[in-house]
């Protein structure tokens, strides 16, 4: 009976959303609309979503939640010295956002940007068959617009905080970040929740790193259990540029990160680091793509996860080295520790190499804590619990130590202590 009736959940889902009034190009909107009209939410039959079920997202039916944040707590500010912009449910909250903008930097909400300024929106993000990217494009509420001129060394870190509040709230946040030639900047993305349940945050961030520019991004995800988060960072690197991103996922019922990096010019450096710590019934899925389209570049990827209780993690990392991209050094590694018998991980590192003079490696390990080492520590008077904490902390510190911003490191440590009781 059922197989004759095709219920499209996506159609029902968009009924509750308002079409974007942001000045995106009509072509881009048209492609997104077409994708939404001819597809449904992905199922586990879709290769890229094989281990991640989004059924709970598709059944969120909300209303326009009222914005409720009247003060900003320290627990939502990662770097107190940063140039900060706070969003709630995809809307910029002016009163918590900086007004004094340093020279050489244009930073504002996307809704304040002109059509010309938003010309790059949708340029690199895949929209065909990509339901979440298309939803974000056609129904975007707001987001941050960052444009750094050429030859600017931005001392102050830029901090973009998104807080989801309320029940069944759906936020489609769209960001555009452009770093000019020979410029250097650091940016923090913090995704939090406050009194939120069954809410869904869908973020697309497009990043353009120009020739000789350097951008470091730290992304912390700490939405409370019961909330859902899908985000895509679409990064394009021009020649001689340097891009690093540290993705730290510490909570949330379902988190899916798509990190796509296209390296279009030669002599680039790319670093992707990730930590995901899961417990209870959480699910975290990191999909990364590093596409080496030009020669003489190097990319380093290190993702580590600790999975407890019945939580499940997914790591899928693809590295492409195109035909004429010689002299590429690409390294990728994923390591997982399972703390319980019911925890699981699906790890799939993939290399596709079409050039013949490259140095690439990838590896994936999943195991339990070394019980011999736990015994050794206990034989020195350390409790079983502390022994495990020491070892888990050491395991992930390897990645956390790659974060250069001390404020971000301290913040990460304090959340890990609060959430898991692990000390560093």
């Amino acid at each position, binding site marked *: 009976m059922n197989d004759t009736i095709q219920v499209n959940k996506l159609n029902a889902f968009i009924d509750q959303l308002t079409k974007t009034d942001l000045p995106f190009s009509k072509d881009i909107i048209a492609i997104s609309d077409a994708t939404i009209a001819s597809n449904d939410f992905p199922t586990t039959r879709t290769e890229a979503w094989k281990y991640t079920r989004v059924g709970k997202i598709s059944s969120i039916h909300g209303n326009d939640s009222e914005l409720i944040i009247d003060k900003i707590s320290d627990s939502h500010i990662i770097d107190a010295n940063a140039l900060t912009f706070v969003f709630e449910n995809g809307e910029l909250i002016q009163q918590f956002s900086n007004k004094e903008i340093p020279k050489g930097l244009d930073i504002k909400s996307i809704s304040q940007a002109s059509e010309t300024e938003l010309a790059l929106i949708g340029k690199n993000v895949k929209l065909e068959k990509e339901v979440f990217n298309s939803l974000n494009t056609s129904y975007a509420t707001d987001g941050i617009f960052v444009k750094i001129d050429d030859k600017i060394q931005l001392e102050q870190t830029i901090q973009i905080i998104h807080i989801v509040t309320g029940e069944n709230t759906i936020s489609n946040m769209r960001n555009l970040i452009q770093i000019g030639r020979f410029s250097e900047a650091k940016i923090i993305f913090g995704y939090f929740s406050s009194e939120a349940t069954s809410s869904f945050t869908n973020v697309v961030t497009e990043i353009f790193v120009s020739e000789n520019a350097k951008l470091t991004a730290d992304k912390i995800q700490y939405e409370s259990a019961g909330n859902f988060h899908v985000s895509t960072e679409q990064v394009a690197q021009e020649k001689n540029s340097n891009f690093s991103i540290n993705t730290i996922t510490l909570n949330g019922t379902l988190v899916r990160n798509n990190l796509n990096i296209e390296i279009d010019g030669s002599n680039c450096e790319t670093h992707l680091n990730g930590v995901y710590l899961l417990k209870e019934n959480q699910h975290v899925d990191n999909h990364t793509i590093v596409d080496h389209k030009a020669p003489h570049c190097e990319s380093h990827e290190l993702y580590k996860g600790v999975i407890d209780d019945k939580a499940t993690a997914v790591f899928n990392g693809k590295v492409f080295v195109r035909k004429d991209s010689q002299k590429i050094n690409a390294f990728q590694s994923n390591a997982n520790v399972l703390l319980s018998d019911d925890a699981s991980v699906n790890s799939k590192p993939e290399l596709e190499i079409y050039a013949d003079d490259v140095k690439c490696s990838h590896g994936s390990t999943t195991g339990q804590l070394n019980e*011999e080492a736990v015994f*050794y520590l*206990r*034989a020195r*008077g*350390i409790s079983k619990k502390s022994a495990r904490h020491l070892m888990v902390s050491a395991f992930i510190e*390897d990645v956390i130590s790659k974060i250069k911003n001390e404020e971000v490191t301290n913040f990460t440590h304090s959340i890990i202590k609060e959430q898991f009781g692990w000390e560093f």
Partner: protein
Amino acid sequence: MIKISNLHASINGKEILKGLNLEVKAGEIHAIMGPNGAGKSTLASVLAGREEYEITEGSVDFDGQDLLELSTEDRAREGLFLAFQYPIEIPGVSNINFLRTSLNEIRDYKGEEQISAKDFLAKVKEKSALVELDSKLASRSVNEGFSGGEKKRNEIFQMAMLEPKLAILDETDSGLDIDALRIVANGVNKLKSDKNATIVITHYQRLLDYIIPDFVHVLYDGRIVKSGTKELALELEEKGYDWIKAEVEAH
């Protein structure tokens, strides 16, 4: 200090210790020697609380406490120390952080205050000098990339830091060159007092030229079959273990 009575222990259903008796008093050094497979390392493992071993019979009294009832960490906190035959490498956990955690958990157990950073560092400096351990090794990951000799010196360094009542050295001499052996033995001798005791488990007499035992025991087939003074070790070195086996089998 410790009184082991009629101790029986098995692993995977196979009995290894078959009624072992041993008493060690404060201020004493006991050597346990024996051929391979006699149960020497099993004894060390059972005393340290390795859970794979099943105790089927017997008792161990450690300073008035039933040792077998205590968890591994509580045994350490009560003052039992095992110098491992094969010290394990723990990547990412620094020796310093590990030892501070260890000292503080032991202090916490005893209801004492945490050690101050200053006192801790002073202690690290003093005790690492005792075993001629480069202070750089103290800040590296536990045993990671250490040579065999450095690992064993690190064991004695930890022993010096924790100041146990009873130290069990499990084949600490194996694989050591003569210089490392002297350093390790020297460390053990300096830590000796009339309040603590040491059990030296070894296959070879050589170590006992440097750590002079008050008693030497021969462990064979899960029991102590012969006890004597340090001369027994020399006799074993000269004649091997076959005569012991013959003696036991004749009984």
